[in-house]
């Protein structure tokens, strides 16, 4: 067993670190150092910078525009991005529908959609959940009926994250109501901006930002050639796509960054004649979280190392979402405690009276309640572990009261 990087890998790390330092615009760097939240326009700007360098899609094969890195290099690259606190990129094209199209898309679909995903010219969103189909996704009801070369869509999607910024949506819709619910679902790609009958309305989240949207479809026509996989075969497309997001969604590296923010807050928060970081009781609370974070980071490393050897993700990877998101939340909870009164302000306050970081912590603390809900709620994760990994039996059907 070996934890270390080779000298080539270390040289690569230095190369990446140096490049990032040179490539980030000054204003972006300032915000990154302050731990502030980036606007969508900044995220797009960073996307274009990475694209020019050829590093925007580390996981893609070389033939479709990936840099051809092994998993160790991809890991190093991600760590360096987090180290520099660069803006997060929209994941829906690059790490979700893009890899799915590479795997299952037609030649035409690949040529049409992959280049603008890479360049950042087209941004994607995900249309899975509906008001009555959350954890029970197979209950979805957005209807797609064939008419000529098109499907005609009627119904509603919800939690379509950042749909207001998106050009395209990948969605699950009902193309048949016969047989098993899962076998009547198809996977479609739709132009959100230019299709008559599609409207998007963002929710204001408790984090004070517009992250999720509702998306309505009223007689919206989508060409059949934009269906991925066979008709009524959308469920397996959705499952394949889920495989791509499993490890990323635990946010292990991102929460590590927050752990450092937490310490910095504690060090800069005056208490009596010293700072909060001098308080042994508070230090112990941080230490406990940090030790736990080390544990989940190691689970992450084991998963990556297994992938590098070409092995399927082991059972340990299934806990990353569950544990990773809970630790992430606990870290932001502790950031709130650290800031005391200053954590209680809101983002619409005067920026001089309430500095950016304080406002950002409160916003993230609220928004991050979503991490244990999205991507399969943590309760669903527990169901999956219990059934698929531990092999526990299914629950008996509920008995009617007599």
């Amino acid at each position, binding site marked *: 067993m070996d934890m270390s990087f080779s000298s080539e890998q270390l040289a690569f790390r230095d190369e990446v670190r140096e490049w990032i330092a040179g490539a980030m615009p000054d204003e972006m760097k300032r915000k990154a150092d302050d731990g502030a939240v980036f606007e969508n326009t900044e995220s797009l700007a960073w996307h274009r910078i990475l694209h020019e360098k050829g590093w925007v899609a580390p996981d893609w094969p070389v033939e479709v525009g990936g840099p051809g890195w092994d998993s160790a290099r991809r890991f190093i690259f991600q760590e360096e991005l987090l180290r520099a606190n660069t803006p997060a990129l929209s994941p829906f094209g690059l790490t979700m529908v893009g890899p799915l199209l590479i795997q299952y898309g037609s030649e035409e679909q690949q040529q049409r959609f992959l280049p603008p995903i890479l360049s950042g010219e087209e941004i994607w969103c995900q249309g899975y959940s509906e008001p009555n189909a959350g954890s029970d996704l197979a209950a979805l009801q957005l209807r797609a009926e064939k008419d000529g070369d098109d499907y005609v869509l009627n119904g509603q999607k919800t939690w379509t994250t950042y749909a207001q910024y998106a050009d395209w949506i990948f969605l699950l819709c009902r193309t048949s109501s016969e047989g098993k619910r899962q076998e009547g679902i198809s996977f479609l790609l739709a132009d959100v901006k230019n299709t008559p009958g599609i409207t998007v309305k963002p929710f204001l989240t408790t984090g004070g930002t517009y992250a999720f949207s509702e998306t309505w479809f009223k007689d919206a026509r989508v060409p059949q050639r934009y269906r991925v996989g066979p008709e009524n075969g959308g469920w397996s497309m959705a499952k394949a796509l889920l495989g791509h997001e499993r490890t990323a969604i635990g946010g292990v590296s991102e929460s590590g960054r927050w752990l450092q923010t937490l310490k*910095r807050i504690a060090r800069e928060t005056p208490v009596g004649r010293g700072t909060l*970081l001098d308080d042994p009781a508070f*230090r112990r609370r941080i230490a406990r979280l940090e*030790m736990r974070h*080390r544990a989940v980071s190691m689970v992450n490393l084991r998963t990556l*190392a297994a992938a590098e050897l070409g092995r399927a993700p082991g059972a*340990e990877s299934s806990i990353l979402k569950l544990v990773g998101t809970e630790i992430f939340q606990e870290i932001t909870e502790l950031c709130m405690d650290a800031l005391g009164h200053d954590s209680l302000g809101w983002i619409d306050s005067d920026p001089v009276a309430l500095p950016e970081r304080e406002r950002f912590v409160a916003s993230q603390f609220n928004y991050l309640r979503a991490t244990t809900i999205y991507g399969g709620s943590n309760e669903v994760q527990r169901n999956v572990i219990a059934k698929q990994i531990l092999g*526990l039996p299914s*629950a008996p059907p509920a008995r009617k009261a007599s």
Partner: protein
Amino acid sequence: MNFELSEEQQILVDSVQRFVQNDSTVERFRKMRETERAWEPAMWARMGEMGWLSVPFPEAHGGFGGSFMDLALILEQLGRGLVPEPIIPSVVLAGGLISRLGSEEQRDRFLLPMIEGRSSLALAYAERQSRYDLADCLTRAEASGGAYRLSGEKTWVLNGHAADHIVVVARTSGDQLEATGLSLFVLDADTPGLSITRVNGMDGQRTGRLELDGVEVDTDRLLGPADAALAPLEWAIDRAAAAACAEGQGIVQELFERTVSYLKQREQFGVPIGSFQALQHRAADMFAEVELCKSCMILAAIQADAEDPEERAAEISAAKFQLTQGGWFVQSNAIQLHGGIGITDEQDEGLFFKRLRVLQGLFGDADHHSDRFQGLDGFDAEARQL
């Protein structure tokens, strides 16, 4: 990065597994706990023959020259059978210190017979008032005319009841809590003035309480330089904590697997209780803790060989913390999910529960390791880096 077992490690794991299944099941442990010694010299000799006791020592010291990870893999499997032979006190604690600090003569005299399974060792460091503070030492060793006279009391000496030789921590200078002034002495168990009282552990293993009443030893019993034992002692206790994580991992895994199979087999309301979602979610959370323990144990075993005390301390404290907190979640729920049968002595789960609880309390508990972790230089360095 690579966390796969090497071919040699896989062979080692397989052979220890076979040993536990064929020769040292929980049934043997049950017999042993009824005896005074609570372990078998014949079995110890066999372990010596198989080379397990030589694993972490350099070849020049008569060892196998293996890594700490190799030893951890052995302990993990032995944990699954509650194998009671005193590997942690003999190999990791006293053996480790003799190998690290001893003269060639001391190694030949005290280490080699242990490696061959002909003798066993112990380390006497804890005192009534010391808790987990290794510097806290009231036992004194006064130099007088080419000899030392040791007086004081040592508690919770693992294998102290049965060891042939005991490494004793005593103060040659300084006050009770001072970091310098500690020295190590190798004593024969039958040295005049040394009285040893057997104390039975909750886990069915035995320890010794030592009273040293002007015990006289020659200067050739001094292990390593005088007044400078704290750093090597910390090293040895860190490795023992990593070893506890390894043995504990075997127990956590065993308790978890036994619980999952019980959930599938036990029926109430006409169905297996494992079909109830409340219990499924508990099992899923237990699984998460088992995997976290496993990851920490690997890191701790890798770091146990590290020369940088800071990194070693950070990972080993994190691992011991996880074994104590996460392991507790697994063991307490293992009993809870078994229901009443879980607290009967005839059921093995309770035996695993008790051994794990002992391992959690040895070499620093969760609070101790939290505090040590937050006291490391790196903890504050990170806060300054940004």
